[in-house]
C-alpha cells in the first residue's frame, strides 16, 4: 500500500504524483525517442500511424468518454482535417500554418454537427453523426474542384523552415510531438473546470444544469474540441497516406475509432491510447496468426473483421471498463499484493432501466 503525505499544495495536483510513475513514464518517453535509431523504416511508418490513431482516439474520447456524446461518424472529421490540410498546402501555405488551420476547420465542422446534439442525444445522436459521415464521404467524392473527387488528390511533402519532414524518421518525430502535446493539453484540460463540466454533463445533465453549467454550450464545445483534435490527426494522416481518396475515410474508420474508445475504456485518455494501440495492431496480429494456420484457412478473408468483432464482444461482456479498467485492476493487485480484494471491482447485479422516459 502507498500512503501519500503531502507537504505542499502543488503535490496535490501533480500529473504524476509518485517518483516511480515519473521514472516509468520518463523511460517510456526515452524509449519512444530512441526508437528511430534502431527500428526499420517500415516499423517507423507503422509506429507513426499508431501515434496518429492515438490522437484521433483521444479526440473521440473527449466527446464519448468524457462528455457522453456518442459519435459513430468521427471518420468524417479525420477526412475534413486531411482534405483541408492537403488543400491548404497545395494553395501554398506552409506546413506549420496549414496544420493548425486544418484542425480549426475541422473544429468548425464539429461545432456545426454539435448543434443537433442540443436537441437529440443517445442513439439518435449516434444516428445523426453516422448519417453526417456518410454525407461527408459523398460530398468529398463529388466536390472535384477541391478534393479531386474519387480520383484522389496528392498530398504535398511537409517541411518546416526549409527542413524536410517527409523522411520516415522526421515524420515519426512529428507524430510523437503532436501525440505528446495533445495528451498533455487534454490531460490538463480534462481536470480543469472545462473538463469537469464535460463530465458533469455526461453523468447528469439535469444536475449539471442546476449547478450552473451551460449544458448546451458545453455539448457543442465538446464537439468542437473533439473534432479539432481528430482533424489534427487527419491532417497528419494525410501525410501518412500520401494520396487521399474518399474511401480511406469510410464508416469502417469511424467504427474502428469507436472500437478503440470502447475497448480502451470510457473516460480515460490512457484507455484511448491503449485502445488505439490494440486496434491498430490487431490486423498485424491476425496476419501473423494466419501464417501459423493451414493454407486453406489462411487464404480466407474475413478473419480480421471476425477477430475485431470477437474482441469487441469480449470487452463489452466481460470487461466494460476496457483496457484501462484492466490496468487499474492489475495496479491495485500489485500495490496491495497479498491483500487484493476481487470484489472491489465487482459489478453489481443490475436490472433493465428504461431510457425511454428520461
Amino acid at each position, binding site marked *: 500500500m502507498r500512503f501519500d503525505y503531502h507537504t505542499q499544495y502543488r503535490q496535490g495536483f501533480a500529473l504524476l504524483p509518485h517518483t516511480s510513475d515519473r521514472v516509468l513514464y520518463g523511460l517510456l518517453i526515452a524509449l519512444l525517442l530512441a526508437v528511430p535509431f534502431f527500428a526499420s523504416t517500415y516499423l517507423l511508418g507503422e509506429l507513426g500511424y499508431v501515434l496518429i490513431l492515438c490522437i484521433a482516439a483521444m479526440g473521440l474520447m473527449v466527446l464519448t468518454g468524457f462528455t457522453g456524446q*456518442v459519435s459513430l461518424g468521427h471518420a468524417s472529421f479525420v477526412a475534413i482535417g486531411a482534405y483541408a490540410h492537403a488543400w491548404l498546402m497545395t494553395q501554398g501555405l506552409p506546413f506549420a500554418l496549414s496544420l493548425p488551420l486544418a484542425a480549426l476547420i475541422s473544429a468548425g465542422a464539429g461545432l456545426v454537427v454539435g*448543434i*443537433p446534439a442540443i*436537441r*437529440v*442525444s*443517445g*442513439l*439518435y445522436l*449516434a*444516428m*445523426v453523426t*453516422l*448519417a*453526417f459521415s*456518410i*454525407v461527408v464521404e*459523398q*460530398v468529398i*467524392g*463529388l466536390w472535384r474542384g477541391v478534393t479531386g473527387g474519387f480520383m484522389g488528390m496528392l498530398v504535398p511533402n511537409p517541411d518546416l523552415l526549409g527542413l524536410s519532414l517527409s523522411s520516415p524518421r522526421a515524420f515519426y518525430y512529428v507524430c510523437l510531438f503532436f501525440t505528446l502535446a495533445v495528451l498533455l493539453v487534454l490531460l490538463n484540460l480534462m481536470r480543469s473546470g472545462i473538463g469537469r463540466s464535460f463530465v458533469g454533463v455526461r453523468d447528469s445533465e439535469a444536475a449539471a444544469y442546476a449547478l450552473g453549467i451551460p449544458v448546451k454550450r458545453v455539448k457543442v464545445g465538446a464537439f468542437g474540441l473533439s473534432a479539432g483534435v481528430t482533424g489534427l490527426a487527419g491532417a497528419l494522416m494525410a501525410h501518412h497516406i500520401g494520396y487521399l481518396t474518399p474511401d480511406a475515410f469510410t464508416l469502417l474508420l469511424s*467504427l474502428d475509432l*469507436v472500437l478503440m474508445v*470502447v475497448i480502451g475504456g470510457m473516460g480515460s485518455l490512457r484507455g484511448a491510447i491503449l485502445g488505439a494501440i490494440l486496434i491498430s495492431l490487431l490486423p498485424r496480429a491476425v496476419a501473423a496468426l494466419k501464417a501459423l494456420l493451414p493454407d486453406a484457412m489462411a487464404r*480466407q*478473408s*474475413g*478473419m*480480421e*473483421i*471476425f*477477430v*475485431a*468483432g*470477437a474482441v*469487441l*464482444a469480449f470487452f*463489452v*461482456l466481460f470487461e*466494460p471498463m476496457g483496457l484501462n479498467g484492466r490496468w487499474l485492476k492489475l495496479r491495485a493487485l500489485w500495490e496491495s499484493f497479498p491483500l487484493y480484494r476481487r470484489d472491489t471491482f465487482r459489478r453489481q447485479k*443490475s*436490472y*433493465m*432501466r*428504461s*431510457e*425511454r*422516459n*428520461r
Partner: protein
Amino acid sequence: MSSHLELFAQLTANGVAVGSIYALVALGIVLIHKATEVLNFAHGDLLVVAAFSAWALIDKAGLSFWLVLPLVALAMGVLAYGIDALVVRRIVGQPQFAGVMLTIAIAFMMRGLVSMGFGTESQSYATPWTGSSTEILGITVADLSLVIMGSVLLIAALLWLFFRYTRLGIAMQAASQNQLAAHLNGVRVKRVNSLVWALAGVTAAVAGIFLAPITLVDTSLWLITLKALAAIVLGGFGSLPGAVIGGILIGLIEQYAGVYLMHGVKDIAAYLVLILVLILRPTGIMGEAHGRRV
C-alpha cells in the same frame, strides 16, 4: 399518357418496391428496439446470412425456392433467438450504448464468418419470378417487386393480428411497456424477448431472400440497415406502422431524388432525411403521443 407522368408513375412503382424492403428491415429493427431497447446494428447482417444461405441452398444444393424460404426463415429465427438468449441478454441494465457496441460486434463476427464460409464474391440466384414482369396502367413492374410489396403487406397484417389477438403477442406488448410489471404478472420476460428477436430474425430472413435477387448476394447488403434507420426515424421511432410508412417514403424519396435532383443526391437522400427529421421534428410522422426526449 405523357412521358413526364409515365416517368413519375414508373419511379413511384420502383420506389414503393424498394421502400417495401426498407420497411421490412425497419420493422425487424423496431420490433427488437421496442422489446429490449437494443438498437440492433446486426440486423443487416442477419439479412446477409439469410441471403447467402438461400443462395447456397438454391444454387448449390439445388433445392426449390418454396422449400428454401421457410427453411431459411426458421433457421434465422433460431439464430436470432440464440443471439439474444446467449449474448445480448447479458448486458441488460447497462447503458444503451453497450447494446449498440455489442450488436456491432455481433455484426462484425457474422460478416467475418459469412465471408470465411461463403467467400467474398457476389452471387445471385433465381426466384420463380425472375425475369417476368407485368404491365399495370402503362407502367412495367417486375413481378418480383409485386411479390415483395405483397409479402410486406402480408407480414405487416400478420404482425398486427398477432400483437392484437394472441396471448404471446399481448405478452410481448406487456413486456415492452414495463418489464417488471409484466414479470410480476407471469410473463416470462426473458423468453418473450428472445422470441421477439426470433420474430425479427424471420422478417430479416424474408427481407434477405427477396432483396438478394434484386441486387446481388453480397456482404455489403448490411448497409440497408442504415437506410432502415432513416426509415424508422422518419416514421417515428418505436412505431410499427411508422416503420412501414417511413420505409416506403424513403424508397420514394430516393427514386425521385435520383431523377429530379442533382447527380449524387440519390445516394445520400436517406441520410439527409434522417438528419433533417431528427433536427426539425424528432418524433417523426407517427411518433408516440406522450412526450419522449430523443
